[in-house]
């Protein structure tokens, strides 16, 4: 790759990378918010709980690509037409919500039941116990997996290139085709993903160190 080609392509790639970041942020928000009610429904049980369970199992049982195609191509004949960016955000959001619902559920269950009982004995209602006691303690537990999910989501957005959504992978593919330089442009794209992901991965590792539960240590004198 000559220097000129590199310099010419860079602005396009940076704009596309911005698209990637936007898609990641929006999908993450969607997933994080939608995941919570699903988790709570799951924990509550009953018919709604079973529905939530079904949702999680079905969405997580298929590839994200399949969900993407279903939403982008499969809904069109039924009258729902979304542009590629929106379809991607919706698909990743729905997929992420199913994943994060399980993360939330595990985090909530990890809070010792004795905490709940203590709250109840103080006269707190169930919703208050959840809000004041359980959820605040569940937050440190779920932060590392959420961080890991964010990194995974960043990488998943590359899939949206397959429906021509405006993100980094699509742009590198175009450029690779234009200049007949697939190796260079895909390596370049890879490097850009690395640069975007690395700060997030670093932050996740710090979160894990702060919040990870201590392993059993043998006593030593």
């Amino acid at each position: 790759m000559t220097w000129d080609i590199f310099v010419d392509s860079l602005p396009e790639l940076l704009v596309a990378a911005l698209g990637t970041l936007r898609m990641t942020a929006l999908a993450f928000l969607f997933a994080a918010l939608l995941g919570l009610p699903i988790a709570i429904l799951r924990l509550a049980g009953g018919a709604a709980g079973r529905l939530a369970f079904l949702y999680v199992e079905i969405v997580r049982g298929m590839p994200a690509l399949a969900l993407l195609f279903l939403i982008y191509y499969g809904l069109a004949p039924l009258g729902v037409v979304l542009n590629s960016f929106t379809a991607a955000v919706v698909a990743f959001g729905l997929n992420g919500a199913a994943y994060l619902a399980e993360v939330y559920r595990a985090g909530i269950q990890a809070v010792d039941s004795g905490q709940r009982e203590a709250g109840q004995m103080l006269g707190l209602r169930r919703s208050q116990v959840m809000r004041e006691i359980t959820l605040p303690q569940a937050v440190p537990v779920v932060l590392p997996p959420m961080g890991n999910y964010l990194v995974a989501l960043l990488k998943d957005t590359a899939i949206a290139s397959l429906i021509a959504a405006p993100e980094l992978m699509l742009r590198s593919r175009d450029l690779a085709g234009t200049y007949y330089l697939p190796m260079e442009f895909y390596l370049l794209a890879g490097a850009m993903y690395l640069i975007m992901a690395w700060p997030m991965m670093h932050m996740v590792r710090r979160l894990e160190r702060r919040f990870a539960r201590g392993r059993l240590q043998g006593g030593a004198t």
Partner: protein
Amino acid sequence: MKSGPTGESAPPVLVLAVGLTKRFGEIDVVKDVDLSVRVGEKVAIIGPSGSGKTTLLRCVAHLERPTSGHVAIGGERIGEKLVNGRWREMSDREIAGIRTGIGMVFQRFNLFPHLTALENVMLGPTRVLKQSRAEAEPVARGLLHKVGLAHKAADYPEKLSGGQQQRVAIARSLAMQPRLMLFDEATSALDPELIGEVLNVMRDLARDGMTMLIVTHEMQFAEDVADRVVFMDHGRIVDEGRPRELFRSPSHPRTQAFLRAVVDRQAMIETPAS
């Protein structure tokens, strides 16, 4: 402080630690310790937490590399070998070879949870000494019988009490026919009523003539079994002598202070509540 019983025709020295120092970070946990143990001798090491007694024991086993000084077992340095006139680090394989002659019993037992009691005891002989199962099994069963657990041979560790696990651990070490047994606070992690059964096994072992280096908090046991008691504090050997003298009439003030604190606590347990 040099150690060793003044004897006329004393048995040969089996363990010789010279100038042993172990540093962790900023702290010298073991400071310039000399220790010798003769064949058949039972040496008890006592002292407060953090005095370095466990670290000293682990240096003898070479589970910790000394910062300076060395340990020799039966005349052979463990961890170092002489190559062209210079001391070089031993390979993992060479150290493993020396360790076949040493048995170690840990505070947390460290039984292998995926193996039955019998399999735990047979593992060393079959995998390290390369014995056949037919050779190793009767010996293993015999050892389990010796520690009173023949009927538990097919049980997994999770089914055994702490005292039972520790006895299996002792049998496991004995299966290698070591000439030296190291005990790292073997009863400290046990419920009080289970301590006795393990101490009894250790007593039998002592009576059979095993050379033993025992780090312990059990003062009565140390007095009964040990030929020599070593008192450590802040990484150094501060006092040592025969059990009767050290326990009944200690001369060193730190020894006195330590024993007073321990004895007071034990007296509290032994005095019946009224």
